[in-house]
C-alpha cells in the first residue's frame, strides 16, 4: 500500500525540485497527448520549449518573451502578497483593464502635446486605477465580510463592459472613421512605453524587474513581508503578533491591484498600442498560474513567467507550423499547474511503501 506521511518540516530539496519535476512530467504527458493527436511528440515539444529560444528565427521570438513575460511577472508578484496572506484576489484581469483605461485616458487627454511628464502621469493613473478597482472587493470584505474571490472575479466582467464602452465611446479615436478603438499610444512619443521595440524592451519589463527585487526584499527582510507570511500560515498568531487583519486585506488588495493596473498601462501604451474591445488577453488569469508555479516566491515567479511566456509563443509556433489545435496548448498549460500541485505534496509529505505498520 502507498502511504503519505507528514514530514516534521517541509523538505528544502523538494521545494526546489517540485517545479522542475512538474515541467518534466508535463513534457512527457504533453508528448503523449501530441502523439495521440497524430503529431511527432519530440518535435512538438521541441517546437514549444526550444524553438522560441534557439531556432534560426529566435531573433524574432526572444523579444516576444519579454513582451509576454513582463505583464505576467508584474501581476503575479502583486498577487503573491495576497495569496501568501490568504487573501484571494482572482480579479487581476479587471484591475489590469481599469489600469489601462485610466492610464490611456490621461495620455489621450494630453494628445498631441509632447512632454516628458505625460508618461509618468499615465503610470500614476494606471496604478491608481488598478488599486481602486481592487479596493472595491477589499473594502467590501472588511466592511461587510463579503467573499473577495467572488467580488473580484465579478468585477472582471464589469471591467470588460467598461472597456467596450470606452473603446466605442469616450476614448474612441476621433480620426478613426468611426471604427472602435482609441488612438495608438505607442505612436505618440510622450505616451509610448517602448524603450526599444526591436529588443522587446518597454517600461513594463523594467517595472517587472523592480517589482521582483522589491518583493524579494520585502518578503525576506521586512516586517510587512513577515506579517503577510504569518497571517497566511496562522491567522490567530498574526493577531497575537499585532497584525491588523483588515488593514492587511486592504494593503494586499491594493498592491496586487496597483501592479495589475501598471501592467495594463504598460501594455496599452506599448505592445497593444490602443484601448480596444479585445484589449485584454487573459494575463490577469494566467498570472494566477504563474504565481503558484513560482511558489509565490519572487525569483520563482520570474522564472515561471518566462516559462509561461515560452509556452505561449512556442504554442503559437506549433499552431502555425504543425497545425496543433490551440486547445491542446491550453491543455498543456493546465497540465503544468496540475502536476505542480501534485508534486507539491512531496514537499510536506513523504511517500511510504508497504503496510505502514508504524503509526
Amino acid at each position, binding site marked *: 500500500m502507498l502511504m503519505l506521511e507528514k514530514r*516534521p*518540516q*517541509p523538505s528544502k530539496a523538494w521545494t526546489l525540485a517540485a517545479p522542475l519535476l512538474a515541467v518534466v512530467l508535463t513534457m512527457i504527458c504533453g508528448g503523449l497527448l501530441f502523439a495521440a493527436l497524430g503529431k511527432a511528440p519530440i518535435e512538438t515539444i521541441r517546437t514549444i520549449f526550444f524553438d522560441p529560444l534557439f531556432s534560426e528565427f529566435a531573433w524574432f521570438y526572444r523579444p516576444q518573451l519579454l513582451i509576454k513575460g513582463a505583464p505576467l511577472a508584474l501581476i503575479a508578484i502583486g498577487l503573491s502578497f495576497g495569496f501568501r496572506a490568504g487573501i484571494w484576489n482572482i480579479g487581476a484581469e479587471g484591475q489590469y483593464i481599469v489600469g489601462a483605461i485610466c492610464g490611456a485616458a490621461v495620455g489621450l487627454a494630453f494628445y498631441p502635446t509632447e512632454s516628458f511628464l505625460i508618461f509618468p502621469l499615465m503610470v500614476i493613473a494606471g496604478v491608481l486605477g488598478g488599486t481602486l478597482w481592487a479596493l472595491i472587493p477589499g473594502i467590501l470584505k472588511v466592511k461587510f465580510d463579503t467573499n473577495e474571490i467572488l467580488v473580484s472575479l465579478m468585477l472582471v466582467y464589469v471591467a470588460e463592459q467598461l472597456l467596450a464602452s470606452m473603446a466605442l465611446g469616450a476614448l474612441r479615436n476621433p480620426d478613426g472613421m468611426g471604427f472602435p478603438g482609441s488612438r495608438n499610444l505607442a505612436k505618440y512619443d510622450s505616451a509610448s512605453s517602448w524603450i526599444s521595440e526591436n529588443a522587446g524592451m518597454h517600461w513594463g519589463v523594467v517595472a517587472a524587474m523592480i517589482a521582483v527585487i522589491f518583493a524579494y526584499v520585502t518578503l525576506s*527582510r*521586512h*516586517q*510587512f513581508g*513577515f506579517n503577510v*507570511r*504569518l497571517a497566511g*500560515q*496562522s491567522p*490567530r*498568531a498574526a*493577531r*497575537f*503578533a*499585532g497584525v*491588523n487583519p483588515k488593514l492587511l486585506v486592504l494593503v494586499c488588495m491594493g498592491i496586487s491591484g496597483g501592479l495589475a493596473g501598471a501592467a495594463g498601462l504598460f501594455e496599452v501604451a506599448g505592445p497593444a498600442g490602443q484601448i480596444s474591445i479585445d484589449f485584454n488577453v487573459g494575463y490577469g488569469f494566467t498570472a494566477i498560474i504563474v504565481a503558484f508555479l513560482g511558489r509565490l516566491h519572487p525569483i520563482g515567479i520570474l522564472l515561471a513567467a518566462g516559462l509561461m511566456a515560452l509556452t505561449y509563443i512556442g504554442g503559437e509556433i506549433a499552431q502555425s507550423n504543425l497545425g496543433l489545435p490551440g486547445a491542446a496548448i491550453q491543455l498543456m498549460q493546465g497540465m503544468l499547474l496540475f502536476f505542480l500541485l501534485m508534486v507539491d505534496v512531496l514537499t510536506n509529505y513523504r511517500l511510504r511503501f508497504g503496510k505502514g505498520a508504524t503509526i
Partner: protein
Amino acid sequence: MTQPLLALSGLTKAYPGVVANKDVSFDIMPGEVHALLGENGAGKSTLVKTIYGLVKPDSGTMMLNGTPFTPAEPRAARASGVAMVFQHFSLFDAMNVAENIALGMENPPPQREIAAQVRAVSDQYGLPLDPTRIVGELSAGERQRVEIIRCLLQDPKLLIMDEPTSVLTPQEVEILFKTLRKLSAEGTAILYISHKLEEIRALCENATVLRLGEVVGTCDPRATSARDMAELMVGTALHVPERAARPAGETVLALNGLSAKAPHQFGTALRDITIDVQKGEVLGIGGVAGNGQDELVAALSGEIRTATGMVRFEGESISHLGPNQRREIGLLTAPEERMGHAAAPDMSLIENAVLTATTRKELSNKGFLNWRKARSFAEDVITTFDVRTPGANNAARSLSGGNLQKFVIGREIMQDPAVLVVNQPTWGVDASAAAAIRQALLDLAAKGTAVICISQDLDELMEISDRFAALNEGRLSDPRPAQGLTVEEIGLMLGGAHDMEVSHVDA
C-alpha cells in the same frame, strides 16, 4: 451481585518521566453512569485510551463481562462493544452527516439505509439531527450528536465520553443529559469524564477520583457535596505555599470593571472584573476551562480592545492599545494554545522569536528585520530554557509540546516584562519541564515583575501564587492571599460561591 461489565485491576502505565496511571482498579456495572474525575494531568485520558485500545498498559488486567479484555486497537474495542466520543471531533466539514457516519464503518450500508438508521436513532434518543445536513454548517453540539449517533449505531455496551460538555451551550447540555439517562436506563454503561462537579452530581451514580495517576477515592456524587469532591480531586495534602506573604508593592496593572462581549458563539463574556496587580507578586487565577480564561488573556494582550479605563498600566488607560504597543510598555502575554496562537507551527524558531520580540528586543530597524539578532535571541531562549531542538532553524511544529512551551514562555520572560500574563503555562508539559517553568516565573517575580498565572492546575497555583482568585462565568472572585487558603475555600471560589459571600456581607 451482578457481574461488572468492565473490571479494571491494577492498571499501570508509565511514560518517560511521568507515571500516568498507577495501579488503577475499579468496576463499571451494566447501565451505570460512572464518572471519572480528576484535574488535568491526573491520568484520565491515558486510562480511557487504555480501555479504548489506543494505549497498551504496562501491567494490570481488564475484564469485560468476565472475560479478559485486551484490545490491540480501537477497532477491537469497538467490536467488543466499547465506543468513545472524543473531545475533539473527527468529522469532515464538506460531507453530510450520513456520509461522515459511513466513513467510520467497516462495511457501510448504502447511504439511504444509513440515513434511515440515523433518523431512527436520533428520534429514539431525542437527539435532533438531519442526516442530509453538511457537517460544516452544524454547531459544535450538533457535531457532537453526529459522533454520539455514530457510536450508538454500533449498539455499544459501554460508551466513553471525554469532557463532552466543554463545547456545549447549557440547552445542549440538557439534551445530552436526557440522552445519556435514557441510554443508561436501557442498560448501556457510560464512563463520563469531566472536571465539572455540578454536572457529575446531576448525572452520575458513581465516581472514581484520580489524582496523579492513582485512584484516591470513590463516592456517590448524588450524595456528596461538590466541595467534598473538589477536596478529593485536589487532595487533602495541598502543597503549603512556599512563598512567604510579602508586603504589598506598587500597583502596576489595574483592571477596573473590565467587561467584554463574548468574541464568538462559544466564548465567554467578561463581566466586571476589577483587580489590582502589584509589582513582584504572582497572582494565580484558577477556574474550570471555558469560564473566560482565553478572553481575559486576549483583553490583556490587546487582541480584544475594551472601553477606556478598563485596563490601566501604571495609572494610564491602555485599553485602546494593540498588542505591540502593550509589549512596548512591558505587558507581555503567553496564550494557552501554542500551535497557531502563541507560535506559528510552520515557521522556524527564529521567525517565532520575531513574532513577539521585535519591539522589545529591537529586532528590526525602520521595519527591516535583523535576522542575525533574531537568531541570537532565539538561540539564547533555547539555551537558557533548555529547549530540546536540533537548532533554531527548525520549524516550531517539529518540537514536542513541552519544548515549544518552554520556548514560548522563555521568549516572553527573556524580554524582561513589567507584567507577564501566562495561560496554562505547564499544560501538557512533563514534570521536570513544568517545574523549570514555574521556577522561572518565580524568579521573574522576585525581580519585580508582576506575574498573572492562569491555570486549571490548583497545585501549581498554590505553589507559586501570592494571591489567588477564581474565574467563573467571566467573573473574577475577590483575590485572597494564597497562604492559608483551605481546600474548602478554593472549592467555593471555583464554584462561584463568592457571590453568595458578598450578599452575606451586604446583609
